[in-house]
C-alpha cells in the first residue's frame, strides 16, 4: 500500500498533473464563488475535454474542481448572505452577521483556513479509511440512515433556542414543502397542485436563496447603509481569523473528522453535515449568546466540515458507484467517460488512481484555500460599499443562480414566494434554519423510515447502530436543557443570556425580552392553517403509504401551533404591531421584476433593472450606473457563452441574440 501511496504522490507532482489540477482549481473557484453554479456547472465545462485524456491527469483536474467548490462558495455566504451551495448554508448564519459587523475579512480568513485544514484531515481520513471502508459503509442500513436524519432534525431544537414551538412549526413546514413531489413508497405525485414545476419538488438552491438571501437584501435596503454597519480595521481581520482557528483547533478537528466520516455514508452526505456541526458548535460553546449574531465558531465549524465531507463523499462514489453528493454524481460521470468503472475494482486494480485522487484532493485544498486567502482582503471591502449600489447586482446574481436550478420560470416564481415566507419568518422571529433543515431532510426521513420498516420489520430499530445514534440524539436534546436549568438555579437573579436564533440577524419581535404576539405571527398562523387544510384536501385521494408523511408534517405544524398558542396564553403575552409595508413593497417589486424577465428576457431585464435602480434609487452618476449595468449584462452573456447556459428569453432578448 505504501509504495502505491508514494508512486501516486510522484504522479501528482509531475508538471502536467499540476497544471491541469490548477485549471481544475481555477474553474472550481470561479463556479464556487458564483452562487448557484457549483460542481455540476464546473463539471460540465470540463467534461468535453475529458474524453481521451490520460486518466491520472484528468482525475487530478476533476479533483481540483471538486475539492475547492466548498472553499469558494464561502465568499457568497459570508459577504452577501447567499448560501453558495447546500454545503455552506450554515455558514451564512454567523458569517454574514460577522460581515455586517465589519468583520468580513476575519470570517473569511478563518473560513478558508478551516476549509484547508478540514480538507487535509478529510484526505488523511480517506487515505486510511478507503481500504477498510466497505464493511463500515455496508453496516449502515436504512434504519441507521433514518436515525441520522433524525439526529439532523434534532438540531432544530438547538437552533430554535427560546422559541421552540415556532421552530418546530417551521421545521414541520419544511418537512411538508420537502414532501412535495413523488412519494418514495408508491411513486404517487402529491401536493403538486397540477403544476408541472412541482412534480420534482422545489429545488434546494431556490429554497435556500429565497429563505436566506432575499430577506437579507430587503433588510439591508431598508437600512440604507453598507453591509458592514460597524467599522472594523480590515487588516486586523486576517490575523484575528488565524488566531480564531488556532484557538478553536479542537472544534476544527472534531468537525472535520465528523464531516469526513458522515460524508462516506451514501445518500446523506452534504445536506446534514453543516447543520450537525453547527449545532455541535452551539452545544459545545459555553457562551451561546453570540451565535446567529456573529460568533466565529459558527463559521469555523461548518467550514472545516464541508471540505472534509467532499473528501468523504469519494468513498461511496469510488467504492460503490453511488455518488455521495451532487458534485460527486457528476464526478462519477467523468469517471465513466474516462472508461473507469467505479466499484470494488477501484481499490483492487486501480489503487494507484484512487490514491492519485486522494493526493490531488489534499493538494487542491491547500491551493484553493491559499488563493482564496489572497482574495479575501480585497473582496471583503465590498461590504463597505453602500448596499443600495450592490442590491441590483446581487438580485441579478440571485435570479441567475435560482434559474440554474431547473432552468424553468417556475424557479423565479418559487424564489419570490419562498422569499416572501423568509421575510415573514425573519420579521417575526421564526427560525429559518429550522425550516431549511426540515426541507433538506424530508426526503431522507420519509424514505429511510419506510425502507427500514419494509426491509426489517419490527427488528428495524433493535440494532446497536440505532441505539448509539438514539443516545446521541438524547444527549443533544437533553443536555442543553439540563445545563439550562442548572444555570438558572445558580444565577437566579442575573439576566440569562438566552441563545436566540433567527438565522442571520436579530428578531425584532422579541426585543425587550417579554413574550409578544405580533401581526406577522397571526399571518403565519393563518397561512399554516390554510396550508394544513390544503394538505388534507390534496392527500384525501392518496394511498396511506403515500400520504402519511405529509399528514405527519401537517400534524407537527398543528401541534406546535397549538402548543405555541397555549404558551402565549399562559404567559399572557402582549401584542405588538410590526410594520411590514416596506418589505411587501420590495417583494412586489421583485415579482414585477420577474414579470419583466418573463416578457423581455433575463439579459435585457437585468440591464434595464440595474440601470433604473442605480439611477433612480441609488442615485448614482449616470456613467457609473451605465458601466455597472453593462457589467451585469456582460456577466450574464459571458456565463451563457462559456457554460452553455440558457436564460428566459423574451421579446427584447430575442432581438439581441438571434
Amino acid at each position, binding site marked *: 500500500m505504501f509504495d502505491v501511496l508514494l508512486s501516486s504522490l510522484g504522479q501528482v507532482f509531475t508538471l502536467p498533473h499540476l497544471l491541469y489540477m490548477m485549471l481544475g482549481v481555477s474553474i472550481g473557484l470561479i463556479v464556487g464563488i458564483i452562487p448557484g453554479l457549483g460542481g*455540476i456547472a464546473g*463539471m*460540465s465545462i470540463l*467534461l*468535453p475535454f475529458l*474524453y481521451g485524456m490520460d486518466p491520472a491527469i484528468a482525475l487530478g483536474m476533476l479533483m481540483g474542481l471538486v475539492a475547492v467548490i466548498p472553499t469558494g462558495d464561502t465568499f457568497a455566504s459570508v459577504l452577501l448572505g447567499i448560501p453558495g451551495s447546500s454545503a455552506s448554508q450554515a455558514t451564512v448564519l454567523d458569517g454574514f452577521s460577522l460581515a455586517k459587523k465589519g468583520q468580513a475579512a476575519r470570517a473569511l480568513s478563518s473560513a478558508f483556513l478551516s476549509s484547508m485544514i478540514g480538507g487535509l484531515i478529510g484526505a488523511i481520513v480517506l487515505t486510511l479509511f478507503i481500504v477498510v471502508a466497505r464493511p463500515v459503509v*455496508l*453496516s*449502515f*442500513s*436504512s434504519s441507521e440512515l433514518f436515525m441520522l436524519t433524525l439526529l439532523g432534525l434534532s438540531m432544530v431544537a438547538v437552533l430554535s433556542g427560546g422559541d421552540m414551538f415556532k421552530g418546530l412549526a417551521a421545521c414541520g413546514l419544511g418537512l411538508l414543502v420537502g414532501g412535495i413531489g413523488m412519494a*418514495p*413508497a*408508491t*411513486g404517487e405525485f402529491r401536493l403538486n397542485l397540477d403544476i*408541472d*414545476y412541482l*412534480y*420534482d419538488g422545489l429545488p434546494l438552491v431556490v429554497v435556500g436563496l429565497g429563505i436566506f438571501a432575499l430577506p437579507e437584501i430587503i433588510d439591508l435596503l431598508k437600512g440604507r447603509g453598507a453591509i458592514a454597519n460597524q467599522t472594523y480595521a480590515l487588516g486586523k481581520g486576517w490575523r484575528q481569523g488565524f488566531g480564531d482557528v488556532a484557538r478553536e483547533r479542537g472544534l476544527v478537528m472534531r468537525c472535520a473528522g465528523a464531516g469526513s466520516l458522515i460524508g462516506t455514508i*451514501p*445518500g446523506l452526505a452534504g445536506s446534514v453535515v453543516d447543520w450537525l456541526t453547527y449545532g455541535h458548535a452551539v452545544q459545545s460553546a459555553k457562551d451561546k449568546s453570540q451565535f446567529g449574531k456573529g460568533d466565529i465558531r459558527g463559521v469555523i465549524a461548518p467550514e472545516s466540515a464541508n471540505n472534509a465531507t467532499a473528501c468523504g463523499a469519494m468513498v461511496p462514489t469510488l467504492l*460503490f*458507484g*453511488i455518488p455521495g453528493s451532487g458534485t460527486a*454524481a*457528476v*464526478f*462519477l*460521470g467523468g469517471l*465513466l*467517460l474516462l*472508461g473507469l*468503472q467505479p*466499484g*470494488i*475494482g477501484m481499490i483492487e486494480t486501480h489503487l494507484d488512481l484512487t490514491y492519485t485522487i486522494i493526493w490531488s484532493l489534499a493538494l487542491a485544498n491547500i491551493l484553493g484555500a491559499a488563493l482564496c486567502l489572497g482574495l479575501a482582503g480585497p473582496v471583503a471591502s465590498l461590504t463597505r460599499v453602500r448596499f443600495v449600489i450592490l442590491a441590483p447586482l446581487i438580485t441579478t446574481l440571485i435570479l441567475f443562480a435560482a434559474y440554474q436550478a*431547473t*432552468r*424553468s*420560470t*417556475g424557479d423565479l416564481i418559487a424564489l419570490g414566494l419562498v422569499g416572501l415566507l423568509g421575510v415573514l419568518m425573519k420579521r417575526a422571529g421564526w427560525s429559518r434554519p429550522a425550516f431549511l433543515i426540515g426541507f433538506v431532510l424530508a426526503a431522507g426521513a420519509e*424514505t429511510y423510515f*419506510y*425502507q427500514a420498516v*419494509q*426491509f*426489517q420489520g419490527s427488528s428495524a430499530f433493535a440494532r446497536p447502530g440505532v441505539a448509539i445514534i438514539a443516545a446521541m440524539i438524547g444527549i443533544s436534546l437533553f443536555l442543553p436543557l439540563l445545563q439550562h436549568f442548572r444555570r438558572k438555579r445558580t444565577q437566579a437573579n442575573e439576566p440569562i443570556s438566552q441563545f436566540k436564533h433567527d438565522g442571520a440577524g436579530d428578531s425584532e419581535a422579541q426585543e425587550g425580552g417579554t413574550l409578544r404576539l405580533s401581526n406577522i405571527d397571526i399571518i403565519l398562523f393563518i397561512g399554516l392553517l390554510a396550508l394544513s387544510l390544503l394538505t388534507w384536501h390534496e392527500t384525501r385521494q392518496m*394511498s396511506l*403509504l403515500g400520504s402519511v408523511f405529509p399528514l405527519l408534517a401537517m400534524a407537527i405544524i398543528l401541534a406546535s401551533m397549538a402548543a405555541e398558542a397555549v404558551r402565549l396564553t399562559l404567559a399572557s403575552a402582549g401584542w405588538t404591531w410590526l410594520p411590514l409595508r416596506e418589505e411587501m413593497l420590495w417583494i412586489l417589486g421583485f415579482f414585477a421584476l420577474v414579470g419583466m424577465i*418573463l416578457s423581455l428576457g433575463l439579459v435585457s431585464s437585468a440591464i434595464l433593472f440595474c440601470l433604473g435602480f442605480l439611477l433612480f434609487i441609488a442615485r448614482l452618476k449616470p456613467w457609473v450606473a451605465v458601466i455597472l449595468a453593462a457589467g451585469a449584462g456582460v456577466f450574464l*452573456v459571458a456565463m451563457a*457563452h*462559456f457554460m*452553455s447556459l*440558457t*436564460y*428566459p*428569453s423574451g421579446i427584447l432578448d430575442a432581438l439581441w*441574440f*438571434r
Partner: protein
Amino acid sequence: MKLFHRKETGLAPGLGKLVKAGVVSAALLFGSYGHADSNVPSNVTFTVPFGVGGGTDVWARFLAPWLTEYLESAPTIMIDNVPGGGSINGANVFARRASSDGSHILATSASTQFPAMLNEDRVRYDYADWLPVLASPTGGVVYASSELGDDQDAVMAALLDTPVKFAAQTPTGLEMPVLIALDMLDMDVTAVFGMRSRGEGRLAFERGEAKIDFQTTSAYFSSVEPLVEAGDAVPLFSLGMLDEEGNLVRDPAFPDLPTFSEVYAEIHGAAPEGPAYDAFRQFFAAGFALQKLIMLPADTPQDVIDDYRSAASAFINDERFLEESEAQLGPYSLVSGDVAERHLSDVMTLDDDTREWLAEWLESRFGASI
C-alpha cells in the same frame, strides 16, 4: 408553464469550436469522406433530458463526436441538458420546440419511453412524431443472495417458498419488467420502493436488506461479478436480448445464463404467453433492448434522416468505435435506425388486454394506478 429557450447561435459555446477543431483534425487524419452537398445543418443541438454526468448524458457525449465525424457536414453538436421530471420535461420541450431540419436531435432512455407507454398525464410527446437514428441496447441480470442456496437451482427452489425483498425505484420504473418476471415465476418477492438509482438498490442487497436484486450489464460486470466470485451472490437469469427479427434470445453478454423465458419454460413446462408476458416483452424492449435512442422529429426531410441514419450505420461498424464502445456500452452492437424503427412501432403502444392486465397488476400489487 415551463418555458425553455433553445440555444441561440449568437451564444454558441466555445466548446463547439474545440469540437470543430477536433473534427477538422480527425477529417485530416481520415480524409476519406466526400464533399457532396450535405443536408444536415452545421450546428446541431442535441437535447439530453437528463443532468450532466448521468448515464444518458455520458452516453450522448460518447456518441456525439462519432456523429460529427461521420456526418458529411461535420456539424458542431452542442449538448443541451434539460433535466427534470425523470426526462419528461426535456422530451416535452423537444416535442414543442425542435425544428425539423435536422438541427435538433434528442436522446431518450427507458424513463422517457415508459411514461409514454403508460400514457402519463405529464407526457406531451408522442413517439409516433419521432424517428430513431440509432438505438443502444443493454441487458440485465437477476441475481440473489447465496444465503438462499449454493447454486442456481437451489436458489430458484428456495425462492418459491421464501419471502424475499427487492429494492426498487418506483412501481413503474426501470425494474417493472423484472417485477413482472419475478411474479410470473411465482416468486414471493416484496418490492421496497424509494431507491434513487439501481446503484442504491444494489447497496441494499450488499447490506443484506434485499435478498434478490437486478442490475444492468455494465453495473453487473463492475459491481456484481466480484460478489459472485466472492460467493455472496448467485446469478439466476438474464432478461435476454432482441435479435434483428425481434425474437427474445440469449444475451450475448451472458451466453451461459438462461433467459427469463427459458427459466419460465423450465418451471411451467410451457413457453410464457398471455398479457403478463406481453407486458414484460414490451417493457423489456423499451427499457432494455432499445434502452437509449437518438431521435429526430418525424417531419424532418427524408434526405436529412437518411444522412443521419447512414452516418450512424457507418460508425457503428467502425473498428475504432467498436473497440471504444465495448468499454463504454458493453458487448452490444448498436441498432441502426431503420431496425429500431421497426421494433419501436410494436413496442410503444400497449393493446387493451395488456394495458388492462397491467393496470390491474399495478393496483393489486403496489396500490399504484396508471
